[in-house]
């Protein structure tokens, strides 16, 4: 049984303890090919979540602990929103869950984004990285910043959360690999043009594939623009216990789960990080193939196998 959120937040008796550790999926909707938006009833997390933080999700006894970014939270309703791209076995299996299904969620983990009025902030979101950017852009806008969002994807359909990002931004720039929407090219091309036309912004935040963040960091280093990236590495507990998520930042070993996930982009050793992200590539492929063979029918509806 899930403790009702009304019992927990703002109600007459705010005292709570215990209850079942299992949260519940309120709704699932496909927002782009292989992208699903989950609203999850998790009142304590919804109440505490700040921009930049993440959760770890478990979908069953056999499951791995998957770190996922939080795209939105509603403390009143006691829900958080997760936007998940189906890339491997766990995220595909998660995509077959239904509203009302139990799910284990722990968080909010990691440090919150440092929010202040910097001036002009360029928020660069690539692919699934747009989801965690949304609460950050909102928080920066609320703090008085001018928000220029550069969103990139392979094609138009993969630039997710556009209406929400438009609302959180003052200016929008889009790039697609195939030129189907916005400018043809990658986000760094758009960033360069923006800087040449408008001068240097006060802050750049980039969230997306490691390779994208690496090239954003290289460019802004030349321009000497302070830049923050949010890293997504392999982790287990998310509380600083295993050290599997460690990255080299400024020559020191840092744990993404507790020291991050955000770091100074110019200090991150992206090459090492990309190597470490591939540790279990072989096993991920075994699990994915095995899952697809077992669930061949389910693969047809929605999951695109490339």
């Amino acid at each position: 049984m899930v403790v009702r959120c009304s019992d927990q937040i703002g109600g007459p008796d705010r005292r709570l303890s215990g209850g079942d550790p299992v949260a519940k999926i309120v709704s699932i909707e496909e927002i782009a090919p292989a992208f699903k938006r989950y609203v999850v009833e998790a009142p304590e997390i919804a109440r505490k979540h700040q921009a930049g933080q993440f959760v770890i999700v478990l979908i069953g006894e056999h499951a791995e602990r998957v770190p996922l970014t939080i795209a939105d939270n509603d403390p009143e309703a006691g829900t958080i929103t997760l936007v998940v791209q189906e890339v491997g076995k766990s995220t595909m299996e998660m995509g077959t869950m239904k509203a009302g299904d139990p799910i284990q969620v722990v968080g909010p983990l990691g440090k919150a984004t440092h929010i202040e009025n910097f001036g002009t902030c360029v928020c660069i979101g690539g692919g699934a990285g747009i989801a965690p950017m949304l609460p950050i852009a909102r928080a920066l806008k609320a703090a008085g910043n001018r928000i220029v969002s550069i969103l990139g994807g392979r094609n138009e359909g993969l630039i997710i959360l556009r209406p929400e990002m438009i609302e959180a931004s003052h200016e929008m720039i889009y790039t697609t690999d195939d030129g189907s929407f916005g400018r043809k090219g990658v986000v760094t091309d758009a960033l360069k043009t923006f800087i040449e036309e408008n001068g240097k912004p006060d802050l750049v935040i980039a969230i997306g594939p490691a390779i994208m963040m690496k090239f954003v960091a290289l460019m802004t280093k030349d321009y000497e623009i302070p830049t923050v990236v949010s890293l997504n590495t392999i982790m287990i507990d998310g509380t600083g216990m295993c050290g599997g998520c460690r990255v080299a930042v400024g020559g020191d070993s840092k744990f993404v789960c507790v020291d991050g996930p955000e770091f100074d982009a110019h200090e991150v050793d992206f090459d090492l990080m990309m190597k470490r992200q591939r540790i279990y590539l072989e096993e991920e492929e075994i699990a994915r193939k095995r899952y697809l063979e077992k669930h061949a029918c389910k693969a047809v509806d929605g999951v695109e196998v490339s």
Partner: protein
Amino acid sequence: MAREKLEKKERLKIPRQPMPAQKPMDRIKNFSEVALGFSEDLAVLEADRCLECKKPKCVDGCPVGIDIPAFVCKIQEADFEGALAIIKKDNTLPAICGRVCPQEDQCEVVCVTGKKGDPVAIGRLERFVADWEMAQEGEVKMPELPPPSGFKVAVVGSGPAGLACAADLALRGHKVTIYEALHKPGGVLVYGIPEFRLPKKIVQEEIGNLEKLGVEIRCNFVIGKTASVEDLFLDYGFDAVFLGTGAGLPYFMGIPGENYIGVLSANEFLTRVNLMKAFAFPDYDTPVRLGDNVAVVGSGNVAMDCLRTAKRLGAKNVICLYRRTRDESPARLEELEHAEEEAIDFRWLASPVEIYGNDDGLVTGARVQKMELGEPDDSGRRRPVPIEGDQYDIELDQLIMGIGQGPNPLVTKSTEGLELNRWGNIVVSEETMMTSIDGVFAGGDIVTGAATVILAMGAGKKASEGIDSYLKGKATAKTA
């Protein structure tokens, strides 16, 4: 069962009974428990070796002060239920402690029988009675609870310290909720200690017994993140908080090459295998990478667990690198012996100084420095000193750091006003276990630094007394 008491001379003639165990070559192929436990006959025979000293030294040697001669005496009479009742007065988790306590440094080291021969196998007897109870049909007998006190206590962390504290608080009539960050309760008993040394079924049963006492366990809840210590008082209505968050911050050595793929902390390795069941990948989703040549740095219990786990996962060459000698090894003797039987390649007086990797970032080997023992250091142990020019290379597919853990800072850093020492451990009053914050208590590895299960339990138990007095004080203040 009426039985003549044996004469002292007769008792001394009985040799210490060896623990039945799986054969080394069989057990390295499975994760089942290595030590199989005493039969009833063996237990009675071993118990007969106890001299029932008038001033038993063993009781002083036990961190929780179990009345050892009294329970051993009950075993002599084959009154196993009676024996367990005596243990449970001081120890709520006997099946666990019987397995993981370093008895050779505690109760057994001071045993009078052991002065001329081998000490009474107190730990094995403790384990025997706990297992005996679990094997009985029907419900485990639970102690009667006093009427509810009306007070609520939050216990942070469900490892040995938290479990012991929660049990004692429940027995004093307080309403206890345990908050656990991981998705299963038990802390190091579940994520750290492997199945072959402590079956998870045993941990589950002990935790189940705790729930029968009315203790509520909330998993997936990170104090410091999901709620702060302050929230526990203000929003959740707790009257006191116990912090038993343990030593959950892995140490690395700070040598070149530590970020190569295949270099990982003992915590990560053991958590993948024990908690996430990576040994059963792909039936379980979490994988673990191994290879033929595995080295573990360190020689404590955690290092032994890693070495023996790697062997069971199929590694061909499993090497232990320890900078001191076997004599200084902090591991429990039984674990060390078991590891030796399982053909672990122990390299004493050896320490890695650099880790090698290839262009793909994969670890390929390590440079090992030979050491010798020099002058004693602060801990009283002789300090390992590098022998100049004496280095060699080893080939490796994986290197596991089992060199210890620091206090996990998640709770301590997020709690304002909590006094810490220079290592980041929480400072407590020795008498009450209260921290610098009123109503907040702490115990276990988060206070002492990485130690043993039984010391953490002892601390949890002691804190429960402190908490109980604190709450009684509050009750008096209310009525006054």
